[in-house]
């Protein structure tokens, strides 16, 4: 009885996760996890080309619109202007420090958050007691809109790296925690029983049976966590920072440099896509190895 409720709650949390800001990311992640055949397919040149059609078309339309003068350039800079703004920033040595520090913050927060999510998710997913005791609390923390932590973090940790990395850690933690704890309680009972029958203790059961069984779900949780990490990075940097792409956004806004604003947005998109692709490679490897 209690278990049925537990599962229902677990599913509800999962659904919540899907419905939050990065919902569509989550869904695509989950479906590629469920379909290893699709996920393990190697991207071919034709796939890349097809995927490039739309961005190129967008660029073309953007160029046409800005040339036509329908929208004034202080509202919509031409692609070339944006490109030049980026080059200009790079030449003054202002761009790469921003990219580097933002990437560093995202990666640190993502790694800490994922590890924490994996550990806490495993404990709560496996132990009935831990779940009864801690799951509601973790759920409540999850319900706090994460930006609400910002003032507190700044108060406690100052405006330096720590507060930003911690905020991103919080952002990365929940998707991993939710997927891991949810998936662990649905691992095939028969396989778990095989592990027990052959003398595996709790930890080796986790390492040899339960975690391998949920690898596809974990990977989609990680992808979601990475997307959240970028989201929280920008939030943190917009609010308080003196370096980073979020800061570049804010500074450009303050100075009315809409070309830089565009450059920063595009850079964030590219970086997010790049890191997601890297995880995609990891996913392919893991799915090949573990399915």
């Amino acid at each position, binding site marked *: 009885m209690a278990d049925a409720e537990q599962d229902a709650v677990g599913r509800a949390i999962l659904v919540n996760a899907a419905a939050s800001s990065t919902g569509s990311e989550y869904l695509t992640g989950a479906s590629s996890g469920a379909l290893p055949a699709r996920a393990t397919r190697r991207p071919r040149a034709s796939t890349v080309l097809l995927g490039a059609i739309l961005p190129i078309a967008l660029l073309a339309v953007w160029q046409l619109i800005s040339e036509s003068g329908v929208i004034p350039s202080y509202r919509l800079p031409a692609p070339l202007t944006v490109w030049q703004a980026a080059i200009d920033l790079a030449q003054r040595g202002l761009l790469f420090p921003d990219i580097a520090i933002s990437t560093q913050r995202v990666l640190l927060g993502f790694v800490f958050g994922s590890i924490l999510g994996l550990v806490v998710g495993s404990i709560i997913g*496996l132990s*009935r007691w831990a779940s009864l005791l801690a799951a509601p609390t973790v759920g409540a923390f999850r319900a706090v809109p994460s930006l609400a932590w910002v003032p507190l973090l700044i108060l406690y940790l100052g405006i330096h790296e720590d507060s930003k990395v911690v905020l991103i850690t919080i952002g990365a933690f929940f998707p991993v925690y939710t997927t891991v704890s949810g998936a662990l309680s649905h691992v095939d009972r028969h396989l*778990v029983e*095989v592990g*027990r029958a052959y003398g595996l203790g709790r930890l080796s059961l986790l390492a*040899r049976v339960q975690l*391998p069984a949920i690898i596809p779900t974990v990977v989609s949780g990680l992808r979601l966590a990475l997307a959240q990490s970028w989201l929280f990075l920008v939030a943190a940097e917009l609010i308080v920072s003196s370096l980073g792409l979020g800061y570049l956004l804010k500074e450009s806004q303050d100075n009315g440099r809409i070309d830089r604003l565009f450059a920063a947005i595009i850079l964030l998109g590219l970086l997010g896509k790049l890191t997601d692709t890297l995880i995609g490679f990891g996913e392919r490897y893991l799915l090949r190895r573990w*399915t």
Partner: protein
Amino acid sequence: MPALSVTLAGVSRSFAASGRGGASGRLAASGRGAASGRDAASGRGGATRRVLTNIDLDIRAGEIVALIGASGSGKSTLLRQVSGLDTPDVGSIQIDGTPLVGIDQRCAIAFQEPRLLPWRTIESNIALGLPRGTPKADGAVRVGELLHLVELEGARELKPSQVSGGMAQRASLARALARGPGVLVLDEPFGALDALTRLTMQDLLLEVHSAEPATILLVTHDVDEALYLSDRVVLLGDDPEAPQGSGSGIRRILSVPGSRPRDRADATLALLRAELLDGLGVSSHHRPAPSPSTTVRLDSF
């Protein structure tokens, strides 16, 4: 490990009558499934459905006992009690004279389904059965022997999804053998095999048994298989006198005469066969006329 005796005394097991089964996923996963699963099932005011009732059985060390009975008569449930995956509500089980507490490493089980870990190769699935702390080199040798034994050398690098049902079942058998158990518990080990492989595997099991004696308790739906392999055949089923839902008990125990290897066409076996089919509620068309002079020993309950 030498073969070990198994003693069941008054073993009964009930499950919650409705809804989710006793040992739920989380409980089973937590490693406390056996004990707390039962509390969830039979305790707290729910109606219970009795599956096994008052099973007494003494199995000598090295004996092969075949368990037959209709589908749903609790054969798998009984095996789960013996391997310690589940605990009887009433009664006790002893292996080699010591009471069974939880999962017993002297016992190895091959489940009714192959239950191979899908992400591991056949080879490393079999290696999972090795006793904890087996040195790596010894383990590899042992797994190599087992792969040869169950004729899966060609499939060692394949994943379970890439092999046939029969191959998976042989791998599951090899995994149980890897343990070198004192008690080998096999749930329809040859169920998914074609008739020919089945005969080969039966002989293989007997070879293994004479090379490394273990006490074997196996479930089968095949009466001929039971008679060919076992020393005794235990027929599990409902008591026709008892009210419905009072659980299966041992209806008959037949001692199979002669020593192994047996002649599959033996006439005395044919008699026993009819007897067993009758006990299963299947009338044998080639039933010999019942005669009081039947030489078969029959311990009827």
